[in-house]
């Protein structure tokens, strides 16, 4: 079972290592982790995708809550949320394949952000399925390099995840 957690943390150095260390020493699996400041510069938000059974996921949430630097931990329900990931793919572009690759990028509504004689960087934003699908289609052309940001997610509607004191 996978779960997505939105974790509000104090924006100090060292917090990321506390969170990562917690996962490592308790044997929890991180699928993806993305972090950045929120509209309040004192608070950062992590989006963590974890894998485990129900008991493990409950423990992850409780153990995260025990960290003094962790302000709030919330689950993001897949049905009521949107999630996105940004990926950059540097793909081989032999001259005769170039237009085919451009066509694929268009279909995915991806952007071509760098072009050289024999490669291109494609930037794609989407949920995990879309990103995976694009990766599969580009693979036969020869992916030279790939980097993903990790998933970020937000609940739909007016419900918000905010620090209790805001």
């Amino acid at each position: 079972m996978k779960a997505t957690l939105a974790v509000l943390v104090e924006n100090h150095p060292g917090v990321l290592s506390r969170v990562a260390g917690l996962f490592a020493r308790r044997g929890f699996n991180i699928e993806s982790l993305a972090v950045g400041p929120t509209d309040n510069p004192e608070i950062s938000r992590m989006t963590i995708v974890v894998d485990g059974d129900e008991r493990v996921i409950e423990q992850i949430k409780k153990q995260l809550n025990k960290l003094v630097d962790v302000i709030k931990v919330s689950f993001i329900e897949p049905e009521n949320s949107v999630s996105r990931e940004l990926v950059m793919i540097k793909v081989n572009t032999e001259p005769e394949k170039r237009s085919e690759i451009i066509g694929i990028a268009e279909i995915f509504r991806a952007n071509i952000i760098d072009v050289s004689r024999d490669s291109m960087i494609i930037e794609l934003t989407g949920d995990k399925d879309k990103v995976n699908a694009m990766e599969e289609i580009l693979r036969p052309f020869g992916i030279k390099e790939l980097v993903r940001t990790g998933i970020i997610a937000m609940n739909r509607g007016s419900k918000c995840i905010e620090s209790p004191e805001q």
Partner: protein
Amino acid sequence: MRITAAEALVRSLEEEKVEVVFGYPGGAVLEIYDALFFNKKIKHVLTRSEQAAAHAASGYARVSGKVGVCIATSGPGATNLVTGIATAYMDSIPIVAITGQVPLSQIGGDMFQEVDITGATAPFTKHNYLVKNAGDIPRIVKEAFHIASTGRPGPVLIDLPRDVAREKIDFTYPEEVSLKGYKPTLQGHPLQIVKAVEAINSAKRPVILAGGGVISSGAHDELMRLAETADIPVTVSLMGIGSFPSEHPLFLGMAGTHGMPWANEALKKADLIIALGCRFNDRLTGGAGGFNKNTKIIHVDVDPAEIGKNVKVDIPIVGDIKNVLCELLKRIEKRSRKDWKDYLEGLKGEDVVEGCGDISPLDIIGELYKQTRGELIVTTDVGAHQMWTARCYKFKHPRSFITSGGLGTMGYGLPAAIGAKIANPNKQVIHITGDGSFQMNFAELATLRENDLSVKIILFNNRGLGLVKELQDIHCGGRYSQVHFGFLPDFVKLSESYGIKALRVESKKELEEAISTMLEEEGSFLLECILTMDVRVKSMLGKEEAYESHAGSLG
């Protein structure tokens, strides 16, 4: 007036009403020690290693109920603290550890005596700080004491770089803490309380399992009222010893792999377990060979992460045990559970130890009880002697049994006894140790003497590592690897060289007089008892399955 950050640190300790700190100086804490030099209110106890300073702070905390404080220099001083900090963490003991650090401007350069102590201790501190701004010192100290002592208590470390310690600041101590991410839940949820009351009132065979949380929340009186009102037998974990008087007719003794068979049987046969401030660790559940599926469990703990971690719980209650018990007691009905009690009473037997020579460990502990009647504080080390003490001494008061339960740290007991004696100078403090454990920290005899403290040491000398030898019997076909000491010092002379009187006994008939001599001695005293190497702990557990689980969890 502007003062240095080091002075501000010491002033902050004063603000926290710290009376004593345990520590060891070095280059990175020169400024702190200089500030202590001028301080008149805080006593500094110089231990003989930093590990001992942390254990002494822990012993002090456990007896006094206050936060214990220890100080060490950077690098090796800080790493020497690590065992003490981890020991305190596993037993949820509130201590604040202060370490020096190389100058902030040089951190990361592998400087002389640099070690990343906040990184190293993150897994076993409740929280830690690397101080980067001198002006933060008062706030950080305030937070550290608050975090260490509230909710589920635990150690907090403050790492102070030397250049920061020298900076000058305007000192004002904050009145309050404001931590967005730290708000322990202290009141039990009313609906859960109602469910628990119903379960307790309707149970046929309930049993209370009390852990260290009962002691740290000061809930022993409420525990007594619950047990007596609802007529419920009480068993304890190793850490729960002292939360309920051993001589009480409802007391079953310690449960778990090293516990009493009838206490484990009670947990197995119960239709309701009321677990208070214990964490169902492997040493406890192992003794019952897992619980019955139909047994309902109420689990009260201030740490939500403990609930449901090791066993499935039917009625979880997050909150301070004392608060929760007060709520429960408003609605608990009076009951008499004669059949259930009679059944358990019928299982009780005498404690026996096999393989003894002239002296059985039970003789020593029995005689000690006869002459002290629970009016003492006992600290122990780790090994067979610890288990005999836990099982057989009839403890009467909370905060009177001080042992390393969660980490099982050999060498804990003597420094812990130093802290205990300072916390409660009017009580007899007895340290029960083994020849192996004693050799890990006996340098603290000097600390005892230097501070004119009176601690009575009973050394169970079986010439080796008894508990490990027993494991090798069970797991290694009796191949005894490195568990016998080929050389031992003369412990009596060793003690005397520190100016501490000592006596050796080799037969049972000498015990009564020796123990009374020891107790009457004004200063410290060491009583060495000669045992055979073949005395075993396991003999309490008659049944094969219990034996199995016992074997499984000793490691």
